[in-house]
Every structure is written in structure tokens, then in C-alpha cells.
């Protein structure tokens, strides 16, 4: 039975989802339920029934925060006297006891700075003494050089095979320890320590690098599976206890809310700058026109290109080039006929007054063929008045070219000499009735167009947001940051000065100085 109780202490590993500082360790401890611990009838004869039940329940509960130092009676006696305090930690405890009134507790704590027990890695190192034997083996086998070479190669995956605990460059800093201890020491009537005896109830090791917690022994329930408090040598102290771990509710919830609100405001500000939609200037309307010259068909020549000219009305402003030509394309002959592929995209950004109705754009196309000798011939002209209406559409434009009255002469000149730009003023295509029409037109082929038009007008009440120049904002924030940095430095220096002069002040006040003069 005794052995069974000893083995019910099992270590646990906790992957922490919350900060370790929120951890609360609760210890419930009660005397061992034995015959001797039962209340005596004489002591409780005069109490009522309920009173009996309450007084019989001797469970005590202690709650500790992570790295919270709670002093035992002997610790308080020891640290109260400055002469017993040598290390920085002990001096800190001395100051703590001077500053605040602490109540000694039967269940107290050893924090990380106490270095009460070795850290987990030290255990391993102590156990792994056989590594020395292994090292000696390597020495004997003359393998050290080879292994060192392998280990030095950080890129080699083989290097890790030879890594042992001796090679692990892991300092003690990655662990933080805390121990909750039951003080069962004997004290005399003056509360002076007679016999020191204590039992570790629970040890907690927090791995700071990987953020997990080793709990030894793990959580349990006092009613179902109580642990037995034992000294280091295994002697039972007649007490049962349980360990509970929980994370306290975030007290700084309000602060978090404030922080979140601030963050949200900052994000909104940034978001506004980012997502601010580009709007046209007030009173102006913007059109974005994408015109595609897709294909040409039914022409006679083999190689063809299209020259285009866009005439925009005076009330529209446009900075994009309005004249250009496609690449020269060789015909594609298929069962469906002959086709010249262009896929030429013309993009125009147009701006005009918002109140006016959008006029049409005048598009002039001239299909020009080239031959192997480099002669260019106009194959046809086409005109299209493109309405500036938002939307997508396509159009097949018929092309025609002017033909002279003397057909024979014109045909032979065209065949032997070539020649393009038969019409110098393209307006004749847009307004043929106003021109002298002393020639006839011959239909030659067609050009396929596709266009997409989108417009944007300023919203009523919308004004272009004013952006504060970034440089001034940056300089202001930089100034603030600088001031904060200076304040931080000042605080650090002040703390350092206080630490440096603390001993001096202590000497002055504690009366140690006269002892020097006495000697």
C-alpha cells in the first residue's frame, strides 16, 4: 500500500496557451485520515453538530502565483537579519521583509532565484556520466578529430547524429523553476528553529524557449487521489495534499480593450489611406476607354497593318497618344476564310466636365498592306464614331478605299508603284457630304473592334481627403520616441544610482560605520 502511494506521483507536461505569469498554483493540504487524527470526544463535547463538522474539516488551501515568494518562519528569521544576507537574492528578500509585513506560512515557496533544486537539464547531465566513458572511447579510437570535423560542419545533417548532451549549448537560462514546500520544522517557544525539515509538495519547471511547463507531481484531487507529503528521504509527514493549476482571468482585460481600440483606430487610419479610392477632381468626369483592334478580314494583300487616328472633341482632355499603328500581320488562311490577327490594345484616359453630355470620339482606321519589296498600299479606310457610354461592345467596320476615275491608270500605278495615305484629310470620312466627292469608293475588307468604357464621376459631398505630409508626422513621432528613449535612460540611470548607493545608505543607517571606528 505504501509503495502504491509513492508511485501515484506522476509528472505532467503542460503546453501553455496563456502567459506563465497568469498561472496560479493551489495546494490543498490536510492531515492524514488516521485514527490518531480523529477528533477527541472531550474536545468537541460542548460544540453543536454543525460546528463539529466544520471544525473537523482541516483542509487548508494555499494559492500561489508564478514566482511568488512566500516565506516560511525560519526564512523570515533568517532574512530579517541583514548579517545573514550575502547574495543579491537574500538582500532582496531582506528588503522585501523590511518593506512589507509578511506572515510566515507552513506552505511556502522557493522561486527560481533560490536555486533550490537543480534544473531538469542538470539532472540529465548528472545521469549521463557514461558520456565521459564514450568520450574516452572516442579518444582511444582516435575518432575525436573526425567527429569534431563533423560537428563543426553545421550544414551537414550528419553532424547532429554525434550531438550529445555534452555538446548541447543550452544554458540554465531556458528553465525557470519554482517549488512549493511544506515546512514541518520544529520550533521552540521563541519560534527559534530547532530542527529543519521540509517536504517538496510540487516542483514546476518552465521551459522559456519552448513554452512548456513540467509539473512534478501533476494535478490531482484531494478526495480521489491525494499525494502524501514526504521529506526528501521519503519519510511521510502525515499529510495529504493535492495540486491544482489554473490560469487566472486576465485582470488587464480593460487595458486590453483599450489597446485593441487604439490598434483598431490606428488600423482604420492606415486602412483609409490604403483603400482611399482614386476619385476624379471635383466637377470632372473621367472615362477609361480600352479599345482593341482585333482582326482584319477580306482584304486582298498577304501582310497587313492598321494605322489608327483618334480625334477627340475639344471639351475632352487626353494625355495618351492618339495616333499609332499595329504590328504587321501575315494572313491566316483557313476554311473559314482569311484573317489578319492584331489584338492591339489602345488605352485612353479621358477627362471632361461632369455636367456636359459626353460627345463621341472619332476613330479613323487605315488598313495598309506591305509586300515583299517593301511597298505599302492603302487597302481601306474606315471611320467609327465611338459613343462614350459606359459598357463593353464590339463592332465590325467595313473598309473602303477611294478609287480614281481612270481605273486602268490607277490600277497599274497601284500594282507597280504602290502608295498609301490616299486621303490626306481624314475628316472626309466623317463628313463626306461637305467634301468634293469626285471619286468613288471601293469596299475592300473589314476590321473588328472591341471596346470597354467605364466612367467615374465625383460623388456628391465627396472631397479629396487631405493627407498630412508624412515627413512632418514622422519627425513628430521621431521626436516623441527620442523623448521616451531619454526618459527611459534617465530611469535606468536613476535605478543604477540607487542600487549603487544603497549599501552606502545602509551602512549609514544600520550603525555599521561606528563599528569601523571602534576597530
Amino acid at each position, binding site marked *: 500500500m505504501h509503495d502504491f502511494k509513492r508511485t501515484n506521483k506522476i509528472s505532467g507536461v503542460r503546453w501553455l496557451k496563456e502567459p506563465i505569469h497568469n498561472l496560479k498554483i493551489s495546494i490543498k493540504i490536510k492531515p492524514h485520515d488516521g485514527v490518531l487524527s480523529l477528533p477527541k470526544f472531550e474536545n468537541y463535547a460542548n460544540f453543536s453538530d454543525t460546528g463539529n463538522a466544520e471544525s473537523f474539516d482541516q483542509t487548508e488551501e494555499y494559492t500561489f502565483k508564478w514566482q511568488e515568494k512566500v516565506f516560511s518562519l525560519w526564512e523570515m528569521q533568517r532574512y530579517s537579519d541583514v548579517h545573514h544576507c550575502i547574495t543579491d537574492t537574500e538582500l532582496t528578500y531582506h528588503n522585501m521583509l523590511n518593506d512589507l509585513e509578511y506572515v510566515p506560512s507552513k506552505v511556502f515557496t522557493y522561486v527560481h532565484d533560490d536555486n533550490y533544486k537543480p534544473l531538469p537539464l542538470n539532472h540529465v547531465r548528472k545521469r549521463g556520466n557514461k558520456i565521459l566513458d564514450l568520450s574516452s572511447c572516442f579518444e582511444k579510437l582516435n575518432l575525436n578529430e573526425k567527429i569534431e570535423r563533423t560537428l563543426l560542419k553545421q550544414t551537414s545533417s550528419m553532424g547532429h547524429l554525434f550531438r550529445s548532451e555534452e555538446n548541447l549549448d543550452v544554458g540554465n537560462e531556458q528553465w525557470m523553476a519554482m517549488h512549493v514546500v511544506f515546512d514541518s520544522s520544529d520550533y521552540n517557544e521563541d519560534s527559534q528553529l530547532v530542527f529543519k525539515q521540509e517536504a517538496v509538495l510540487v516542483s514546476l519547471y518552465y521551459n522559456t524557449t519552448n513554452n512548456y511547463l513540467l509539473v512534478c507531481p501533476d494535478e490531482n484531487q484531494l478526495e480521489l487521489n491525494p499525494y502524501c507529503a514526504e521529506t526528501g528521504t521519503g519519510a511521510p509527514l502525515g499529510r495529504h495534499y493535492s495540486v491544482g493549476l489554473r490560469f487566472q482571468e486576465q485582470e488587464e482585460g480593460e487595458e486590453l480593450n483599450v489597446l485593441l481600440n487604439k490598434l483598431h483606430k490606428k488600423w482604420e487610419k492606415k486602412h483609409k489611406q*490604403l*483603400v*482611399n*479610392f*482614386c*476619385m*476624379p477632381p471635383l466637377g470632372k468626369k*473621367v472615362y*477609361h476607354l*480600352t479599345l*482593341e483592334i*482585333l*482582326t482584319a478580314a477580306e482584304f486582298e494583300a498577304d*501582310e497587313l*497593318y492598321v494605322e489608327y487616328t483618334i480625334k477627340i472633341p475639344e471639351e475632352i482632355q487626353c494625355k495618351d*497618344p492618339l495616333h*499609332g*499603328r*499595329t*504590328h*504587321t*500581320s*501575315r*494572313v*491566316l488562311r*483557313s476554311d*473559314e476564310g482569311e*484573317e*489578319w*490577327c*492584331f*489584338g*492591339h*490594345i*489602345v*488605352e485612353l*484616359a479621358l477627362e471632361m466636365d461632369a455636367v456636359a453630355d459626353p460627345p463621341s470620339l472619332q476613330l479613323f482606321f487605315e488598313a495598309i498592306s506591305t509586300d515583299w519589296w517593301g511597298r505599302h498600299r492603302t487597302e481601306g479606310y474606315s471611320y467609327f464614331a465611338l459613343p462614350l457610354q*459606359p*459598357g*463593353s461592345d464590339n463592332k465590325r467596320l467595313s473598309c473602303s478605299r477611294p478609287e480614281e476615275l481612270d481605273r486602268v491608270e490607277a490600277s497599274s500605278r497601284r500594282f507597280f508603284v504602290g502608295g498609301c495615305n490616299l486621303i490626306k484629310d481624314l475628316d472626309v470620312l466623317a463628313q463626306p457630304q461637305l467634301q468634293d466627292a469626285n471619286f468613288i469608293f471601293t469596299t475592300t475588307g473589314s476590321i473588328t473592334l*472591341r471596346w*470597354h*468604357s*467605364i*466612367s*467615374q*464621376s*465625383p*460623388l456628391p459631398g*465627396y472631397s479629396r481627403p487631405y493627407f498630412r505630409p508624412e515627413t512632418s508626422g514622422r519627425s513628430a513621432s521621431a521626436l516623441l520616441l527620442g523623448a521616451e528613449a531619454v526618459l527611459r535612460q534617465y530611469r535606468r540611470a536613476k535605478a543604477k544610482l540607487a542600487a549603487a548607493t544603497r549599501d552606502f545608505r545602509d551602512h549609514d543607517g544600520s550603525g555599521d560605520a561606528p563599528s569601523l571606528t571602534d576597530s
Partner: protein
Amino acid sequence: MAELHVLGQLQGVSNFQDSSSLFCRYSFQAGPNWTVISGCPEGQTVSGKLDYAKSVIWSHPLDIHYITKGIQGWPKLVLQVSCLDSIGRAWVVGYSCCSLPVVPGHHVLDIPCWLPIATTLTDRIREYFLGGSHQLLQTDIINLGTDRYKLKTQSKGTITLKIDLVLRNFTQFGVEYK
């Protein structure tokens, strides 16, 4: 911020005279105001052999979601058709580009393809016997009209694109598209 959702498929190619299998690389290009928030703006279709009608069906799905803070730089689709011959060699057989429509809804677009042709007789003979083609070093020329006039090209087939467009929040910023 306005949103544009492009759904659809690269249906296939027709009227191509090549005998090898054809596949297509595509890339959505948009102005600096536009940001892709989901979907892949680049991709490649499967390789398919030409059927008796000289066409290949890819039916490659497209799904891309843009957010934008301006209508400038409306997205375009740049396409590059390549062939894959029987011994695993691939070269470009067609370039093309189209601007995406601005009207929401279903659209079927025919996009013509072209390819720079060999200018010298030696290149033509090499292409005829060994395969390969002239390729563009600067692919910007596909979607930009400027400087295209220097090119001498061969007309290739037509790519069919079937897309559905969803526009959101554009009207909030005074944009008219219909």
C-alpha cells in the same frame, strides 16, 4: 474598396495550324491600384492535341478576386500559347492579350493570336526542319500597343475565353460601367 471577381475558363484555341499539342500560359496583369486577394494570377493549361477542326479544348478554370482603389489599370489577360512536340520540346506558337470587360455578367471573348515570324531565310529553314520559333524578349509588348509596329508577325488562331464578372462596391465610388 471595390472588388472584381473573375470566374470562368480558358475554353480552348481554334484555327491553329500546328500539328503538335498545344497548351497555354496565362497571366493577369493589372495596374498598381489593383491587388489580388485570392486566386492565382498566373497559370498554365493542360496540353491538348488538335482535333479535326484544328482546335484544342482546355476548359481551364479561372478564378481570381481583385480589390482595387481605382479604375485605372483595369486587368488584362496576357496569353501565350506553346506547342509540345512528340519528343518533349516546347516553344511559343502564339501571343495574345485581351482587356477584361467592365460589364458584370457572362462574356465570351475571342482573342486573336500572333507570333513574330522568322525574318531571314535561314531562320525559316531552321524552323521548318528543327522546330522552334522567334520569341519576344520583352513580353510587355504583348499588352502594350506602343512599339508594336516594328514587329512582323504571322496570324495564328483564336483563343476562346468564357468569363463571368462580378463587380462590387464600384457604384459607391461613382463608377458607371453599364
